């Protein structure tokens, strides 16, 4: 075989593997979207046949059914509100802490930093029970607050901000100080505009971690009025009668807004995650 022939073969095999991987990764997604368009009974009975991908009849009936059976809009609103609050408040609180730890004359700085690093190792599942106990005792069950406030201060976010600010050039602050700006003004007008990459990374990473939350709302909420989407899909799945078309339609509706955001900002998602990996 000549060299060009070998390269051609190699390229062909590579494309074949890429095609197989893509099929495996995308199949569940396609299956979900197609299934959501089919009559309820057909979803399960045709799941193992080609009709799972090429349906005989399609309609949006499942979408209207799902929206009729559960308050989907409410769940969407709950998820949006909870995660927006966690991310936005988290950015403010954790960026300030990361900056103070990295650059300011903070009393007890070493202890504070050690605390952040120690807390980073504690998995949420290990503290969920006493936290439940603590917050139920002050009557916070079934509220938005209980799903937001405990997750604003985040050791990983603080650490990401801290390590970014540590490497920022000192000249930035010195110039601001010569102009007579105080610490807060320096932070807001000089530091924040120069820290866009870390803000983007923390936004994406903290959102990805908080938006799938299941255990905590499962423990803390009993009313649909404050439940977020992941818990809602899990309980919709157990709601009789089990209509698979409706369940998949619910699934498509719940990821659709996020998929749009993801596709528009996919570069930010990818660099955000990659950055957290390189730093962590």
């Amino acid at each position, binding site marked *: 075989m000549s060299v060009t022939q070998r390269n051609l073969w190699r390229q062909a095999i590579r494309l074949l*593997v890429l095609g197989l991987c893509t099929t495996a990764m*995308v199949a569940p997604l396609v299956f979900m979207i197609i299934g959501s368009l089919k009559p309820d009974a057909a979803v399960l009975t045709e*799941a193992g046949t080609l009709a799972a991908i090429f349906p005989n009849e399609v309609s949006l009936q499942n979408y209207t059914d799902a929206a009729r059976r559960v308050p989907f809009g409410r769940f969407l609103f709950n998820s949006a509100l909870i995660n927006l609050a966690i991310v936005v408040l988290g950015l403010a609180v954790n960026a300030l802490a990361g900056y103070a730890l990295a650059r300011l004359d903070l009393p007890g700085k070493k202890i504070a930093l050690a605390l952040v690093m120690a807390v980073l*190792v504690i998995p949420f599942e290990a*503290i969920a*029970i006493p936290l439940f106990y603590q917050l139920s005792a002050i009557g916070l069950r079934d509220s938005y607050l209980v799903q937001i406030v405990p997750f604003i201060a985040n050791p990983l976010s603080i650490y990401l901000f801290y390590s970014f600010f540590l490497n920022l050039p000192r000249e930035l602050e010195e110039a601001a100080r010569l102009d007579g700006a105080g*610490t807060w003004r320096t932070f807001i007008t000089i530091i924040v505009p120069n820290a866009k990459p870390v803000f983007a990374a923390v936004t994406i990473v903290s959102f990805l971690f908080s938006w799938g939350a299941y*255990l905590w709302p499962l423990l803390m909420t009993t009313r649909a009025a404050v439940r977020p989407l992941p818990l809602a*899909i899990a309980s919709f799945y157990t709601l009789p009668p089990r209509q698979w078309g409706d369940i998949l339609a619910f699934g498509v509706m719940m990821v659709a807004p996020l998929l749009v955001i993801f596709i528009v900002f996919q570069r930010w998602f990818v660099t955000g995650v990659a950055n957290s990996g390189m730093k962590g």
Partner: protein
Amino acid sequence: MKKWSTAAIGMALPALIGLGLFVVLPFLLAIGLSFTNARLGSPLGIQFVGLREYVYVLSDATFWRALGNNCLFAALIVPGQTALALGLALLLNQPLRGMVVFRTLFFMPVIFPIALVSVVWILIFAPGPEGMLNGFLGWLSGGAWQPRDFLNDPTWALPAVVLTSIWQGAGFQMVVLLAGLQSIDPALHEAAAMDGAGRFRRFLHVTLPGLRNPLIFVTIVTTILSFRIFDQVRIMTNGGPKGATTTVVYEIVQAAFDRAQLSRGAAMAVLFFVLVLGLTLIQRRVFKQHGAVNR
């Protein structure tokens, strides 16, 4: 100088108070509760009972079963997912148009909440010949495949949950590894090729060492996540069949909430924390011996 210091305190305080109230305090409370006989909703007073709950948990076969399952999850998910992610990253690491599309597709499951992923995969694993995976395997084997009820089969339930987890998590790792691949200096590959190193040897001596830090990161994160598994198990199998997929976190929740044994749940939570801490320390130590870690 005084002014800078007050501002610093003001900036650091909200986050430190948050961590104190919502992480440190419940953590100390977990330790405290684990030495008592506290039950949820019990009218009796709380008493100090020493190590009683620990003795109970450590002599409970269910707890060991859960721990063993967690080890099995880690043993399957960590190598499986890392290998898949590395393979995908290598496939995508070439200057071809359209690679962004594939990267986007492979990363997509990461933005799906695990609750939704679990529900969709329940349908994929549906029993009988009409189940998607059963139907596909039947077609692939020309009818020789015996359809099974994957999620209710003691042998298949755990691998089924593993597959679901890998599908959802691989994209995250892939992106981290891809960034690592792209930061390897191409001159190193060229130099190795000049020295007559073939593809495989270049992979072994240039690519892998260049990926050391991202690989450390993804294996540590994935191992810890394998020990924290709860959502998939709760939704797909409820720990069954016959405890085949139960995990430590699942047992913590069962004890504390379904059986109201708050102190027993707390004792398990403390043991669980020690386990995760130990894993983190061991992994950091092992990797440090092989060279510098970023931290």
